[in-house]
């Protein structure tokens, strides 16, 4: 290890090659950025809320922030508190044990707050429909503005969902 440190301090600095981003995702991201610029004034603050998922959807949302996708460059930031959030990404069917916390999290948001259901379970309860432990999809407890199905949806699909959400809001703004 000491030799590693010495190499690091005195040796020539090495940088590894990073593969270029896929152009499709880039296009999607730039479109989202344009929409965010007009609708939200350059930044969209996202709060993730797990109401009872199997953790795969969290991993995909985390991946959005990881270097491969790095959605922060398109104006999407993941914030630590619902008080700072424009959008809640809710994952998993709403369990009875989480229901009160889900409600409180939404109530802590500055209004109007948007809610996007991510994954089959959050959309309609998925395979968990009808069990004693869940209420059902997120719309059983919150007003859901957009649904992104998938088990779990891929990072691209979540991005596409956000683009659709922006289009919806733009439409509402222009008509309302």
């Amino acid at each position, binding site marked *: *290890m000491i030799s*590693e*440190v010495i*190499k*690091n301090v005195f040796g020539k600095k090495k940088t*590894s090659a*990073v593969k270029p981003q896929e152009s499709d995702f880039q296009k999607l991201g730039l479109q989202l950025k344009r929409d965010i610029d007009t609708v939200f004034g350059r930044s969209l603050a996202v709060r*993730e*809320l*797990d*109401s*009872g*998922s*199997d*953790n*795969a*959807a*969290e*991993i*995909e*949302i*985390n*991946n959005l*922030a*990881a*270097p*491969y996708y790095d959605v922060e460059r398109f104006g999407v930031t*993941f914030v*630590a*508190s*619902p008080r700072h959030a424009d959008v809640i990404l809710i994952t*998993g*069917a709403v*369990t*009875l*044990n*989480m*229901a*009160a*916390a889900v*409600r409180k*999290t939404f109530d802590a948001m500055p209004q109007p707050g948007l809610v996007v259901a991510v994954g089959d379970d959050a959309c309609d309860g998925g*395979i*968990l429909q*009808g*069990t*004693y*432990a*869940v*209420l*059902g999809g997120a719309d059983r407890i919150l007003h859901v503005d957009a649904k992104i199905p998938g*088990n*779990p949806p*891929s990072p691209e699909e979540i991005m596409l969902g956000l683009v659709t959400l922006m289009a919806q809001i733009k439409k509402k703004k222009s008509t309302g």
Partner: protein
Amino acid sequence: MQTIIEELEGRFKATPLAVSVPGKIPKAVYLKIDEKSVSEIMLLLEGKDVILAGLFAAENFTGEKFALFYIFEKRGDPVLMALVVGIDEAKAASVAAHFPGACYYEREIADGFGIEFTRAFDKRRLFLHEVYPEGFHPLLKSFKNKPMDIDFSKPVKEYAFRECSGEGIYQVPVGPVHAGVIEPGHFRFSVIGETIFNLEIRHFYTHRGLEKLAEGKTPLECCSVAESVSGDESAANATAFAMAVEDICGIKAPLRAWCIRTILLELERVYSHLGDLAGMALDVAFPLGAAAFFNLREETLRQNAALTGSRFSKGIVVPGGLKKDIAQSKLGGLQAYTNDFVARLESAVAVINASGWVIDRFETTGVIDKALVAPLNLSGPAARASGVKVDTRLDHPYGLYEKLRVEEYPRDGGDVLARFSVKADEIKNSIRLIQDVLDQTGGGPVSAECKAVDGHAMSLVEAARGQNLHWVWLKNGRVERYKVRTASFCNWPVIEHAVLGNIVADFPVINKSLNLSYAGNDL
């Protein structure tokens, strides 16, 4: 284990149940014991250096109303012993005084079946939070699974935490909704200054009633339930479930199916560990160091998608083998991909190892005492980083693992650094295993016909986080009872010990170094 079994048969008239078929994996011997001799037997077993690997209940299994299953494991012995106790009344003696790990299980059974454990240390509810009505026990057969009618406007009474009080001690409640993008759970810290004096965890926020959901489903339908136990353990849990069903039906999945299963299981370990390495770097504010791990993980998830169509390998492992074959060209693609993987990983690990301030944060942080491993039945990297050689792939080899060369990399530190190093080494071993398996993957069918018959079986699998135990009981072609005990369920309580004396700011990195599943714990 064999001598213990003989002793129980001789001294306590324990009678073997007819299901102890030789050649089963894992080799489990079921012994029916009398309710009255439980305490005496537990006292005897306490001195026999055995581990309580599981404890669960089933209804109408034996002649009595309930059957309690105490699963025992002895390190280095492939034979498992399942003690079955039949009870007519919903009352049993707690064994937590002999096996501390039993505490959590007994609370779980009390919630599920309404069985009261006398002399238990802790009788608080576990997976049923206060919102559930008193006297509600979902796993009883008399309860038909249906949505609950609950009035959320009513206030519920608070859960009684074991908080510490005294001069200078204050409480830090964290969760269930966390600052990061992670699953929900509650952590109640009692803190002096910055130092953690006590921690109590409270989980089960993602309790989805999976065990009840499984009941009445056909084995094939039940695969999606097994997969949703924990999203990032999909392949492991689906494989464990499939193994148990195959065992009941007396069939074996074809060789090619096992080759592909093994590849998926190891890929799962790779991406899971990579996420942990990245997370640990991130939690000590070193995103640059994390980036390389994140990139490798994304590529691994894409390999999963290329092979199975799902980034989490969902929907491919079924009882009997696989749902569909994977084209040889795709496996070739994976082989090409793995060529420079280890070198890339090593250069990423070298960056961490060369950063003194990262090591400074990792070293001596969140130490897990080796002495806790056996009483709490810790497994996976958490146990191996505390100097204990425990790996289901070696201890109870299943499928291809009987022939594969699984390496162990135990470290003694028990701290975050030890867990970091163990996980980094295990990724390299997993890649080597994948390459070995790819070399020997031949043609042939990927599924055998699996006709459901009545019976029950237990299976063990080494998921990324440690040993998962599944027990499946089929009746009339449908699941009568499905019990899953994940490594997370056993490993979670140890975090209460690992954080003591550490500062609150180090909690995230300690938590990440263990990376336990909330969903897999809560079911």
